[in-house]
């Protein structure tokens, strides 16, 4: 895997000032890589910071700390730098009905990116190519259609074609199937999988749906209150989750591989009031059940470090998990 086309985030932080001088730490230290030819799922509950992270990766939100880079080149702030960057990293929005202008034809919607980037050679050819890669064939049939004449699945394909027309290396897709019907959902997920396999496209798929990750992703990162608490290969993270939060999320799914369902009480705390120590401790089922007594002082006092790129592919930010894997620490 060459690193010249890898999207990376290192120590990424995004803070928002709130009235009353409080600060919301929406993204609070994130390390993440997305390479061409792999699909990475970023999963978490609403309010965990996953959409802010995506917007920051696209340069739509300014990081207050850390860095986003593409192919080892840090993302600049100038319009020119952002424009060059966005030819490589493209956004696919959720809700295709909202993302398309109802008064633009499919052709104009797809060609818009080319026009913004001043690519004038063979515009019809490029638009046709993007539409057929997105599975709208024959493409010419769709050129003059308006969004309201298309089905939900076709509209989402047009949005994807609009991203593909610039021939990017990485797509960032925010809940690409959340508003779609069960049957159309499979269609769009198959399309993402095919783009990865046939064209070597990389994708970061942001979702609250772990089933989606199981359907298409290679790796998964679980986000809780601005921080990735577990990441690794999908098979490992979803069938043998190690972080108590991931275990709880997986346990409440129908036919879950985790036997006993763990329904966590309460909701995600406010990003301006992140608990000290381990941020998950106040809701942690292991702490509540008294299983973490030996490491409780760490859970209360020490923030588990940001999961970094490491030799080990499966990473977990949990004191208890670390102690269980290294029993010497447990006996002390």
């Amino acid at each position, binding site marked *: 895997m060459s690193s010249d086309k890898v999207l990376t985030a290192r120590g990424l932080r995004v803070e928002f000032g709130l009235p009353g001088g409080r600060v919301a730490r929406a993204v609070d230290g994130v390390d993440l890589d997305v390479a061409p030819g792999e699909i990475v799922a970023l999963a978490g509950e609403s309010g965990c910071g996953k959409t802010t992270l995506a917007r920051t990766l696209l340069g739509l939100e300014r990081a207050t700390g850390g860095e986003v880079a593409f192919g080892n080149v840090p993302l600049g702030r100038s319009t020119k730098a952002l424009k060059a960057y966005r030819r490589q990293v493209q956004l696919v929005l959720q809700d295709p009905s909202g993302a398309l202008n109802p008064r633009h034809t499919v052709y104009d919607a797809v060609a818009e990116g080319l026009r913004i980037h001043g690519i004038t050679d063979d515009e019809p050819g490029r638009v046709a190519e993007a539409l057929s890669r997105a599975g709208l064939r024959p493409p010419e049939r769709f050129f003059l259609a308006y969004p309201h004449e298309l089905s939900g699945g076709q509209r989402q394909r047009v949005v994807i074609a609009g991203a593909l027309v610039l021939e990017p290396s990485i797509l960032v897709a925010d809940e690409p199937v959340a508003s779609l019907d069960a049957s159309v959902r499979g269609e769009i997920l198959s399309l993402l999988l095919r783009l990865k396999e046939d064209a070597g496209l990389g994708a970061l798929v942001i979702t609250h749906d772990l089933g989606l990750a199981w359907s298409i992703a290679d790796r998964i990162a679980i986000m809780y209150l601005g921080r990735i608490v577990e990441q690794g290969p999908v098979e490992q993270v979803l069938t043998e989750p190690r972080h108590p939060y991931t275990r709880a999320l997986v346990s409440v*799914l129908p036919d879950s591989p985790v036997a006993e369902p763990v*329904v*966590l009480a309460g909701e995600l705390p406010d990003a301006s009031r992140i608990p000290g120590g381990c941020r998950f401790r106040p809701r942690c089922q292991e702490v509540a059940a008294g299983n973490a007594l030996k490491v409780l002082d760490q859970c209360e006092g020490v923030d588990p470090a940001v999961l970094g790129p490491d030799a080990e592919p499966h990473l977990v930010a949990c004191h208890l998990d670390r102690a269980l894997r290294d029993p010497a620490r447990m006996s002390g």
Partner: protein
Amino acid sequence: MTLLEFRDVHVTYTGSRGRVPAVRGVDLALEAGQVLGVAGESGCGKSTLAMAVLRLLPKSAEVSGEILLDGEDLLTMGWGRLRAVRWTGASIVFQGAMHSLNAVQRIGRQVAEPMLVHDKDLSAAKAAKRAEALLERVGLPPSRARSFPHELSGGQRQRVMIAMALACDPDLIIADEATTALDVMVQAQVLQLISGLVKERGVGLVMISHDLSVLSATCDTAAVMYAGKVVEQGPAHEVFARARHPYSAALGAAFPVIGDPASRRNPGGLAGDPPDPGRLPEGCSFRPRCAVAVERCGEASPELLEVEGARLSACFVAQEGEPVVLG
């Protein structure tokens, strides 16, 4: 006695495109203390069916057949009686119901409102107390009664809607995609709450969802609807795990089971769109999208018949005892 019974229910909308049949002859029954799941894509008629129960459909909708609640036909009863049945006999929690809260009224007042309307002798203070108790039941601190909707998260607002649905102690609750917009963990909390109520108070619950896997985990019986008809019916888990109609099989496969190697990197789905209810195909309405269709499917529309035990299927192939999934 059966709590809720649909007998040959038809709903037809009349609009600019002429007469559109949305529900085409549905027979279903639900006992008290049981959960019935209704699954299908948008446009299959499942929400129309839910709205028909409390006669919430627009005037352009023509409803025929019978919908019996405790043996009493809801479709023919007078408006006065119907008003009494709404909230006290049966209540509905809609999809995105959290957006239907009044933005400028405190939560407690809104939960108390149906109680005050239905019980003229109830004092406002007593109703407020009961509203607080209901909020506590659905896992919200009673102090939340003083809050306005915008101060609550989506999950909390959806719980307020459930508290409202419980306000008048109904015998039947209809939840139309009530948890669809919620996060996994909040959805689990709400489903746990609803199932607890069914067990503890013996209410009947109709759960409508496009997600067959959620229904399989929470319902006793499941009915899958396609183009206005029930195409498969049976014990919920069986319908999900071993579908006897190709449409249920495809709908079930759209939601993978984590840990199941067959669904790994293999998103299931179903090509094509549901038919336009105004222009249904000849024969079986699922035939144009069906992978196992035979010649007969184009000629006649299959009836919903018993295929084994408590399983009903409206598929000629399943009725012959053949598998409904290729491979």
